[in-house]
């Protein structure tokens, strides 16, 4: 366990960036987003939700998966084996860190996605514990402790004036060991401060909804008339899915240029009408109703059914805040009978 005064963070960034490409949350224009650190950039450690979740580092919005060329014969280049630059991701919030574990279930389960695995393994995730919740935070509903991030390689706990670093994996320990010159040894007093901060944070956070037994309840919810009314407000944009740290659907596109080309994988959203559009013209989800239902059923029923009961939601609240028409998962969970406290 080591620590650093918040006033000395520039030194830390300097040091970390020597160990790999350092990315951290930065405020620019109207939003906070994860960007690569440079000399003149200062991190925003107050904002909870970066506009895009850090899933983009393992699962980029657009990536080339294959290159091909026809000369006399077809030549293929598998570019996934090239993925994975040494990266340090600082400031990942516990909810987003928890989302990595969910994403791992998809991309590191069989068949393993090679590019994802390489990126995941070459990245050190430094989580940053939360102190004060945003009004839209509901991580507690999914048993995510706002002060802890067990899946991260390192946890940076905010004790007010200092950040205390706790290694949680061998990758984390390795990195921590390299930061000796910059970080100070933490004391047992610091350990207590961390515990206190985590406790206080936990008290400030509200669960908002309960998802207990929700997946089971939804087994028979597919044909509910609830969906007939819910979807009407949806404008079929991709805000909720693209901003969601756990949404992970993609589309494969060919980019042909004469006798050569690339195959590209890019994010896709189940809210888009063409998401399930088939070449022959048939669309198994013909209206927005089916699409909206798919999104919530996937998060709250299909995913937990496939992955040991874990919901595909971490309560980050991005969709609650950003959905242009306020059609958010809080409302859906509550309507399905999962309410404990609204405000």
């Amino acid at each position, binding site marked *: 366990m080591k620590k650093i005064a918040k006033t000395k963070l520039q030194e830390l960034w300097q040091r970390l960036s020597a160990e790999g490409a350092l990315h951290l949350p930065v405020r620019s224009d109207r939003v906070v987003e994860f960007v690569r650190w440079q000399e003149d950039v200062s991190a925003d450690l107050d904002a909870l939700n970066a506009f895009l979740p850090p899933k983009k580092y393992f699962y980029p919005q657009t990536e080339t998966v294959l290159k091909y060329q026809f000369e006399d014969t077809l030549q293929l280049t598998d570019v996934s084996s090239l993925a994975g630059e040494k990266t340090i991701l600082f400031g990942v919030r516990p909810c987003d860190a928890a989302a990595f574990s969910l994403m791992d279930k998809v991309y590191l389960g069989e068949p393993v996605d090679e590019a994802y695995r390489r990126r995941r393994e070459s990245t050190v995730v430094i989580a940053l514990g939360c102190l004060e919740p945003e009004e839209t935070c509901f991580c507690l509903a999914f048993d995510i402790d706002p002060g802890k991030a067990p899946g991260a390689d390192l946890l940076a706990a905010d004790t007010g004036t200092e950040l205390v670093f706790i290694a949680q994996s061998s990758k984390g320990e390795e990195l921590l060991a390299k930061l000796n010159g910059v970080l100070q040894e933490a004391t047992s007093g610091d350990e207590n401060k961390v515990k206190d901060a985590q406790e206080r944070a936990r008290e400030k956070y509200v669960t908002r909804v309960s998802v207990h037994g929700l997946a089971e309840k939804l087994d028979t919810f597919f044909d509910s008339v609830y969906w007939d009314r819910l979807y009407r407000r949806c404008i079929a944009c991709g805000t909720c899915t693209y901003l969601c740290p756990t949404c992970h659907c993609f589309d494969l596109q060919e980019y042909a240029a004469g006798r050569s080309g690339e195959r*590209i994988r890019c994010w896709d959203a189940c809210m888009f009408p063409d998401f399930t559009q088939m070449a022959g013209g048939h669309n198994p989800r013909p209206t927005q109703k089916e699409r909206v239902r798919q999104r919530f059923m996937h998060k709250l029923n299909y995913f937990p059914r496939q992955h040991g009961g874990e919901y595909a939601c971490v309560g980050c609240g991005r969709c609650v805040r*950003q959905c242009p028409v306020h059609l958010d998962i809080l*409302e859906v969970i509550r309507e399905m009978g999962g309410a404990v406290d609204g405000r």
Partner: protein
Amino acid sequence: MSTANGKIRSSAAEALAEGRVTLVLGWRKKDFWWQSPVAFVESAAEAEQLTFDPFSVYNPVKYLLEAAGCHEKVGVFVKGCDSRGINRLLQDKRLEREQVLIFGLPCSGMVDPVKIRAAFPAPKICEVARDGEELLVRLSDGQERVQTADFLLEKCLTCRHPNPVVYDRLLWERVPVRSGVDALRFARVSSVAQQQIQERYAYWTRQFSRCIRCFACRNTCPACNCRSCIFDQAEPRWLGKASDMSDTLNYQITRAFHVAGRCFECGECERICPAGIPLQELNRRLIMDIDKYFGPYEAGLAPGDLPPLGTYRGEDPAGFDES
């Protein structure tokens, strides 16, 4: 605002009870103080949930595209900006005037939750309500009064038509146009336009670098009312799915071009953009050019005429070297 709510509830209830309409589009309150999404009200009883508060900002007009197909006649509450959206749909032949019963709501501006949050600790805010010229901010530990004008959405500060331009009934007195609107309207555009070309490029690519192609800007826009958008078509693929700057520029240029002369400045594209891209600046730049080259034109005012890019004059000047 309670009298306003009374008026909209009774108007909606009456129209539904009398069978003049079978659906009314308005707004209702949701969990958070800043959430007033569009409500679909189908009975007089449901009309009780309707509300018009400082956050009833979303334009309900876009929903008419589908609603008008399923209902004989739809009631709709519109602010000034929303009402121009109705004219947009009328001009685009996407709606017939007799398909809608329009309740006009003169609007002195909607409130920006971001500005409220900047002034008050968000978790403590319980309600923000209008009280004359002031906003009453009710907090978990007390309440405060602030000047509404300081907390308005940016788009409302440049609104030239706060009063509905098309309606069957106006629910209350007209409100004055904010002073200084015309000076503000193109201020952001002009400041960018005055930069050097490389700076402009840097500025826009920085903005667009955040575009995640969620299409919220398109989908919320009443001017984007095609049955099938070209961006969604596979052959030819007008827009690559890859999210790189080239295709993001392609998307943004084409989107702006398709609403050129048709954008009625509701500013919803910019307001709801999750990436905070100043889209209204681009739209307004096109409006400036249309005014300059083809004569002053405001969309969404006269549904009977042709939009500027649907017509021409022989003596039009060209925005390029015609030699």
